[in-house]
């Protein structure tokens, strides 16, 4: 479970760090912040994963302008934001799929340069993508072991993979009749659960979940939420969940970060915020954007 550090209210109300409020992570506590902000900064010092001033551009488009965040050991961090806010880009940087233009990433206090997904995985950072990264044509167990197959050189050890996949899926309560079926035949929830199980059993220290509940019905979402709750109870896995549904995020996460126009603009413990507050921040952003458009017109 999360160590409920006094995360404070460093950035309420969707204000930018430049507003004089306490910032998100990575800034010096000596910037005239509140005591809560200092506590947050201290927590960030001991964070398992810490991101400092990360930026990413794609041509003329700035996807991330200055990202500072952290996740503590055993904590579940919800990363919320509108479409195009940069959530998926940030996740792709954190899992080694693409490098940041600037900024640094620290794992267990050590700066790491993630060269590839494989490299990130070898360091204990694993990801479950929104598009699942499952291969429809492959069986459940081949998908679960993709890129870390059990091998009796030079052949795949299918028997071992089949057995372990069965055990792991049973252990996390995913009832599948067979692990020999292609994943194309499974429901969205079952597919997502397999993708999560694949990452969980990769000795990950940090698990990144990209919209794990996207396009799911209530029953399927419940399966995944239960799975995340079980992982939280284990207490040894830090999870960053990118989500759209504020209610679900507040329910399942220990802390909420809001990503707006390439920056973290909100950082609160889930128990200290509400769907209403998050909605208000986003609506305020829409109003501001609308005003700017009217002015420029």
């Amino acid at each position, binding site marked *: 479970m999360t160590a409920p550090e006094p995360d404070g209210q460093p950035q309420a109300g969707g204000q930018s760090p430049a507003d004089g409020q306490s910032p998100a992570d990575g800034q010096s506590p000596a910037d005239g912040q509140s005591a809560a902000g200092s506590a947050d900064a201290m927590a960030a010092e001991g964070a398992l994963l810490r991101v400092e001033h990360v930026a990413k551009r794609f041509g003329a488009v700035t996807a991330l302008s200055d990202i500072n965040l952290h996740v503590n050991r055993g904590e579940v961090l919800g990363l919320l934001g509108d479409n195009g806010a940069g959530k998926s880009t940030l996740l792709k940087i954190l899992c080694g*799929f693409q490098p940041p233009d600037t900024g640094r990433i620290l794992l267990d206090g050590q700066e790491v340069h993630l060269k*590839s*997904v*494989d490299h990130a*995985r070898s360091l204990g950072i694993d*990801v479950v*993508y929104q*598009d*699942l*990264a*499952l*291969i*429809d*044509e*492959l*069986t459940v*167990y*081949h998908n679960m072991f*993709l*890129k870390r*197959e059990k*091998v009796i050189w*030079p*052949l*795949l050890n*299918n028997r071992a993979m089949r057995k372990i996949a069965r055990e792991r899926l049973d252990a996390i309560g995913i009832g599948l009749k067979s692990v*020999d*079926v*292609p994943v*194309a*035949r499974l429901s969205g929830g079952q597919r997502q659960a397999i993708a999560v199980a694949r990452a969980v059993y990769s000795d990950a220290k940090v698990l990144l979940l990209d919209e794990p509940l996207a396009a799911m019905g209530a029953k399927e979402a419940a399966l995944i939420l239960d799975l995340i709750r079980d992982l939280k109870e284990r207490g040894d896995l830090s999870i960053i969940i990118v989500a759209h549904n504020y209610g679900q995020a507040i329910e399942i996460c220990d802390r909420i970060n809001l990503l707006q126009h390439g920056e973290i603009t909100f950082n609160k413990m889930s128990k200290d915020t509400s769907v209403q507050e998050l909605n208000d921040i986003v609506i305020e952003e829409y109003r501001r954007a609308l005003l700017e458009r009217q002015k420029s017109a």
Partner: protein
Amino acid sequence: MSETAERAPEEEVAALPPTPGLGGGFWGGVKRVGAVLAQQREATVFVVAVLLVIYFWRTAPSFLTKDNIVNVSQITAPVAIIAIGEVFLLVCGEIDLSVGFIFAFSPFLMHYLIDYYGVPAVLAVIISLLMGVAAGFINGFITVALRVPSFIATLGTGFILFGLMLTTSNAYPANIPNKAQGIGHWIGTYAWAEITWAIVLVLIFQVVLSRTRWGLHTVAVGGNILGASEAGINVARIKYAAFIMTGFMGALVGLQEAFRTNSIDPSSGGYQPMFYAIAAAVIGGTALAGGSGTVIGAFLGSFVLAALTDGFNLIGISANPEPIIFGGAILIAMIANVQLARLRRAGRMT
């Protein structure tokens, strides 16, 4: 056997479900066996191959004589060997149209090296095979690094190789160098040499495709390239490997055919063996869209094409309508593949 949706056939047969509607008794058993066969991608083409053999044996008894079996094997083998490479390429979502021109150029290269540069025969054969590897690498480079669709990339390299072969040979055939006759026996001169190579290579690469990480990753790349990449699979390496292997197979078949016919002919190779190889792969259950396929299926597809060619000849049907039959066979195979794949995905063929 299929590399995708790994099944343990013996387990599946043993645990054959009492599928509703299949019933019990003899006919229920027949239907269940039919259902299992329908799940195997090679089953359809295997049944077609058996029916063809029976038909041609009944209508032309000489079909199953030793000499004719050798003949069929020599038609089957080159197509099957090239099809191995094409299966890997198709499974990972690519295609190689240049392989027939690698086929055409490799024996000429061996001839130039031995007769004009005094290179020892074994070394000349190895260099000719490496030419195929290099051509495959270039195809891979243009497709992967320069992002030109493989259809266009290999069309271009195919024309270049064709032009190189015509320019350097002045479009005249050449004799097999005397120094190469010895090694040539093992490569293609002996009656059973080509089919032996084909069977050994088919078995090896079927195992590679269905039982190794390379094969699994090839299927993953063709099935979901983004997903495979996000899982950490080196997509570029998988594609390079498939192009290189296809180039090698093309060069090998070019040498084999030159030794078998005892002539280096500028009119051999080209588009025909490439199209036959792709047809064989497709008839054998390989999906043109990538993500699934089998090498054994392609071998059976090659045999079906060879049996049709040879059988029609034996029963006195002109060669002219052959393309109609081939075209029909490809269309029927594709329609069957698409529909069977749809049923498999829907779980209605378990």
